[in-house]
């Protein structure tokens, strides 16, 4: 199947000759049924309004909280009535008047690099395998600068650097 090294060819051949126990038909039927149901569920799209609301609610909530902090400093803002600034009320207000956010900044931070040893490609070329851990941050802002959302995403990159083995 491949040009992999064999350490004990006789034993390895004997082991390969013994097959894993067959899965019983009950398990196969169960897996087929679950995957069929998953396929059916995946092929039925959610109603668009529901998906829109699911997306908007958390984003609008976060935007509303940030907007309240930036726009309404305590010393200048009128004392809010308890009912006026509940999160639900702010979300409702934002749903009526959406905030138009635009990307303003993307940053990549390198958190660390890890040498994972030597690997070789199918044509026996050795490479150093290096794993790089990064943190990407994205900032979105509305035109007035009053509303800003920043989120960060951890990420990994794997590099293969040609190596020379003596």
């Amino acid at each position, binding site marked *: *199947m*491949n040009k*992999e*090294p064999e*350490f*004990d060819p006789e*034993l*390895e051949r*004997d*082991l*390969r*000759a*013994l*097959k*894993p*126990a*067959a*899965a019983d038909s009950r*398990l*196969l039927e*169960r*897996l*087929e049924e*679950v*995957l*069929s149901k*998953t*396929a059916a569920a*995946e*092929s039925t799209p959610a109603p668009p309004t529901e998906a829109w609301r699911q997306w908007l609610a958390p984003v609008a909530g976060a935007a509303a909280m940030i907007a309240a902090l930036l726009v309404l400093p305590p010393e200048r803002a009128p004392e809010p009535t308890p009912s006026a600034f509940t999160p639900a009320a702010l979300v409702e207000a934002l749903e009526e008047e959406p905030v138009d956010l635009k990307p303003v900044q993307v940053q990549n931070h390198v958190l660390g690099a890890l040498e*994972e*040893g*030597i*690997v*070789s490609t199918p044509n026996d070329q050795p490479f150093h*395998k290096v794993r790089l851990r990064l943190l990407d941050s994205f900032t979105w802002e509305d035109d007035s600068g009053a509303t800003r959302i920043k989120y960060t995403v951890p990420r990994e990159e794997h590099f293969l650097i040609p190596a020379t083995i003596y």
Partner: protein
Amino acid sequence: METKVRDWQSWLREHTPRLLLFARAQTRCEADAEDVLQDALVECWRRSKGATPELPLVYATLRRRAIDLARSTDRRVAREETVVADIETVCWFDAALTKAEAASILDRAMKKMPEKFREVMLLKIWGGLTFAQVAETLDIPMNTAASRYRYGLEFLRKDTELSQS
């Protein structure tokens, strides 16, 4: 979509025995092995958008799911209560009449083998993965995968010789 389901059905019939073998070794309990296999396959189905996935991806997903399951305290207690019975009764290998004795010896030896050697052995011999794929699946360097494989072979060689003597 129907074609994809048919592809999956034949893929399942071909690969379920080897995936279940790995799941059994990762969970040590039949019910958990089946649950973990099911969860991993559903996750891979979603990730591959219904296409049949690459085996290394399925093995890696299986392993991650098994680790998640083992971290769940209540499931661990339940598993520990059933593991003894399962280990005794469920043979991991095809015990057809002509190979029943060899399958039984191998079954006992694999269950005794240290886990870090066993998972490499299972992926390499019965999973059909290359050392590079084994290393990627287990998140270890390839040289480590190769040396664990060699130690696993030595363990089996010694253990099966002892069993036969």
